[in-house]
């Protein structure tokens, strides 16, 4: 369907436009799927346990009378009930396997299927985390190897894979900063954070006991306000948390100077690795003076996002900070075998019950092995190529918050549509009718009405051309038939949901109707 056809059909508010790929989430309003509890039929069940093969004792002799449970309100279903219910739920989801997912700052790239098979190998799945090291040498080698790969890719030699999410890596890193300052005998009180940062940065600083000091940004370059940074930097600053490239998708050109000035007053430089995809194979943050960086394994490498986890948030640090890494680390002995090193007196301690999200580490390890040196270089290069190409396609119809060559993502300015009564939220919802998950919206907070687009390196030119056409069509609709846009989406199973009601009258769980 061409852009013109889109525009014409859009005039008929609510009329079907295009059920993209025939996907049922674009097929119009649908009946709700009952909550799984509502399908329960007393006495129904899905499976059975084998007959007990040991002599039994009366449970009343084992569990004190007052501690026995008499009622367990779980649903009672057949296996077919279960399979059909969750299959139906799955069909109410947008996913990267059927559609393009241009969410800025989320790096929704394609993850190869071989990684799923590797992660499903019984010799990796059926390992108890406390088995003797001698019985899990293969698993420890995976962790050891990825520690070294990540060190090489980031230029930061100390690596722990314990953190299981980006925010978790941040907390680990800032607690290490705290431990390093305490070791030097003085607790510093402040962490500097640019106003373009992810909300996790100030939340992390607070969790680690620090006061967040906000640094402004330069409205023209989109980079951190260097004078503001200099005026706020002093020897009470424990760290500066900086995102590279920043959340406008721009490289901080004065990063080396920032690192030098911070180091002069003993302030560490923490790099939020959320946007590392742009830099892989192009530059190593450690070479620029960065002291700590977390790697979102699920963004930069290969872990499917799973509707919100599991991911991985490995922390990589400069040599001076290695003693503070979470314990234990996986090390290689002189005889070539792998072992846990728990004897780390300066370690901040454990941040996860075991060794982090091993299954996610394994997928990323397989991905890095497959890409190799050359593939890693192509990764960052193509992420940036695709973003700039998309940017060029949209340049005639949209304005940019900052107008210059970007890295892996860029931010559109939704404000010009306000004169038609259309907000960024409306544009996002209308894009759904055209068959696309919207980009990230209203982030970064410094860019009003932000629309943040990140195509990733795995998408093709054709996909980007089609998406740009759809977004341009929505822009046209916003100018010509704003009500269609304001009331979107029309093609989804449900319309816009009442979020105020959800928060004011919280209904957070199913409860049996009172009979």
């Amino acid at each position: 369907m061409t852009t013109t056809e889109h525009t014409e059909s859009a005039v008929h508010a609510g009329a079907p436009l295009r059920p993209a790929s025939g996907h049922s989430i674009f097929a119009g309003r649908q009946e709700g799927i009952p909550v799984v509890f509502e399908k329960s039929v007393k006495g129904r069940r899905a499976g059975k346990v084998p007959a007990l093969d040991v002599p039994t004792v009366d449970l009343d002799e084992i569990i004190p009378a007052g501690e026995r449970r008499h009622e367990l309100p779980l649903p009672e279903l057949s296996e077919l009930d279960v399979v059909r219910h969750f299959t139906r739920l799955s069909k109410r989801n947008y996913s990267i396997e059927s559609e393009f997912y241009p969410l800025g700052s989320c790096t929704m790239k394609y993850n190869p299927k071989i990684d799923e098979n590797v992660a499903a190998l019984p010799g990796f799945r059926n390992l108890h985390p406390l088995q003797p090291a001698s019985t899990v040498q293969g698993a420890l080698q995976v962790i050891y190897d990825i520690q070294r790969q990540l060190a090489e890719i980031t230029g930061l030699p100390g690596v722990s894979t314990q953190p299981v999410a980006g925010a978790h890596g941040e907390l680990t890193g800032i607690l290490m900063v705290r431990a390093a300052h305490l070791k030097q005998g003085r607790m510093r009180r402040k962490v500097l954070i640019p106003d373009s940062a992810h909300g996790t940065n100030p939340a992390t600083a607070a969790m680690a006991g620090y006061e967040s000091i906000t640094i402004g940004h330069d409205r023209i370059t989109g980079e951190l306000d260097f004078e503001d940074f200099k005026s706020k930097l002093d020897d009470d600053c424990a760290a500066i948390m900086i995102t590279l490239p920043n959340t406008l998708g721009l490289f901080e050109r004065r990063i080396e100077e920032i690192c030098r000035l911070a180091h002069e007053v003993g302030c560490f430089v923490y790099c939020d690795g959320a946007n590392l995809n742009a830099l892989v194979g192009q530059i190593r943050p450690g070479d620029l003076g960065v002291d700590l960086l977390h790697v979102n394994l699920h963004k930069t490498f290969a872990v499917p996002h799973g509707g919100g986890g599991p991911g991985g948030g490995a922390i990589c640090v400069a040599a001076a900070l290695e003693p503070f890494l979470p314990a234990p680390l996986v090390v290689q002995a002189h005889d070539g075998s792998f072992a846990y090193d728990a004897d780390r007196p300066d370690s901040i301690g454990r941040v996860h019950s075991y060794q982090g999200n091993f299954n996610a580490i394994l997928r990323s390890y397989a991905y890095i092995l497959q890409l190799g040196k050359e593939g890693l270089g192509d990764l960052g290069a193509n992420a940036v190529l695709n973003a700039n190409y998309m940017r060029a396609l949209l340049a005639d119809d949209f304005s940019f918050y900052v107008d210059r060559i970007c890295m892996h993502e860029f931010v559109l300015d939704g404000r010009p549509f306000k004169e038609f009564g259309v907000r960024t939220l409306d544009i996002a919802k209308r894009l759904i009718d055209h068959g696309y998950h919207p980009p990230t919206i209203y982030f970064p907070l410094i860019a009003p009405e932000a629309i943040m687009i990140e195509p990733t390196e795995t998408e093709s030119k054709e996909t980007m051309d089609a998406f740009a056409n759809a977004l341009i069509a929505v822009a046209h609709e916003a100018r010509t038939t704003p009500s269609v846009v304001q009331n979107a989406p029309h093609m989804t199973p449900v319309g816009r949901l009442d979020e105020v009601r959800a928060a004011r009258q919280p209904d957070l769980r199913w409860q049996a109707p009172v009979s």
Partner: protein
Amino acid sequence: MSGFISTTPAQRDAMLSRIGVSTIDQLFEDLPSEHYRPDLDLPAGLSELETWQLLRKLSETNFDLERHPSFLGAGAYRHFVPAAIGHLISRGEFLTSYTPYQPEVSQGTLQAVYEWQSIVCALTGMDISNASVYDAGTGTGEAARMACALTRRRRVLVLDTVNPRYREVLATYASGPDIDVETVSAFTARPDGTLGRMTDFSSKIDDSVACMIIQQPNFLGWMEQVEGLSEALASVGAILVVIADPVSLGVIRPPGAYGAGIVVGEGKWTGGPVDFGGPLVGMFACRKDFVRQMPGRIVGSTIDGDGRKGYVLTLATREQHIRREKATSNICTAEALIALATTIYFCHLGPVGLREVAEQSIQKAHYLASRISQLPGYTVQSTVPWLYEFPVHCPKPASHVNEALLRAGIIGGYDLGLEDPTLAHSLLLCCTEVTPRSDIDRLVDVLGSL
């Protein structure tokens, strides 16, 4: 082009031309040129076939627990996972979707999270659940922070019968905000080497305490004496935090029934293989009036403009993307896919299936205990109620016993001497419904021969 890039050289040139540059390098001119394009010390990429062969071979060097008897629990338990679960969570629509920020195209994930929250509440007897935290260890740390925020106090009591790994994570989480964590003895080693339970903590409880953290059943597999505990804590304005094993909740009363304010649990073992300890999924539930201090995502039911029911992420004003440094936690989404697996597990088992899994685990472990107690030199604790895990006092150091078992092809138990040198002869053994009697009998034979 290598890797997973679909752009052909001709397309690349067309794209560069559209951008208005002639090389990709021109897109990177903002980067310091002396560090641009480092010569990475990494090997060339492998084909899919080579990757598969390499990793399959590596996996085979590990001691796969489906092929060896194992009695190791200590917080990580093997349960049978119905085949339907793996198939359902492998569906691309669940596996490759993002956090449900756009509810109109994410109702599947959102409703599944609402169902998870409902199941966690049903199991624990609590009012409210979030969408999950990373694991029970970090959940314990979050619970301590939450209790301190609710009570405006800084002192946290934790029993020494709580999983030592959870206590280590708690200590890490407490270090930032300067929470004072005090470990309280809940067991004692008797002169004969066996262990006894302590149940009176009243001397520790005063109005400086934010919460007391207990685990039920505890790390030793025993049931803690919970009667009166929440009342004692409530009388000084403190909160009872319970770490619960969901399988046990098939047969013992839920923490909500004995006054827990916050409940944490590890949901991984009921829905997936042990996976070398990750990814896990933390259950996190609390009383209704605590919801504004809850960390993590929460899904709620609401309606659209036509009154159609739907689900959204809600109560976001607690969260980092809105509240930044004033957020209840920095956590974003956590372990959605693992939470989904666990949700499906409980739907598949239902109340009867879960009770049977718990009962079989209990019966097998008690059979093992009765067999071991007949072996000369071995002593099994018998006065404290316990479920599917128990400490055995061995005639030799537990580390030696484990080594001997490994030589016989058996993964033994957890050597409690690793936690406390005075417990060097204590071995923590566990059974679940997947432990066949033949494995139990073989273990007893080998133990008897040492």
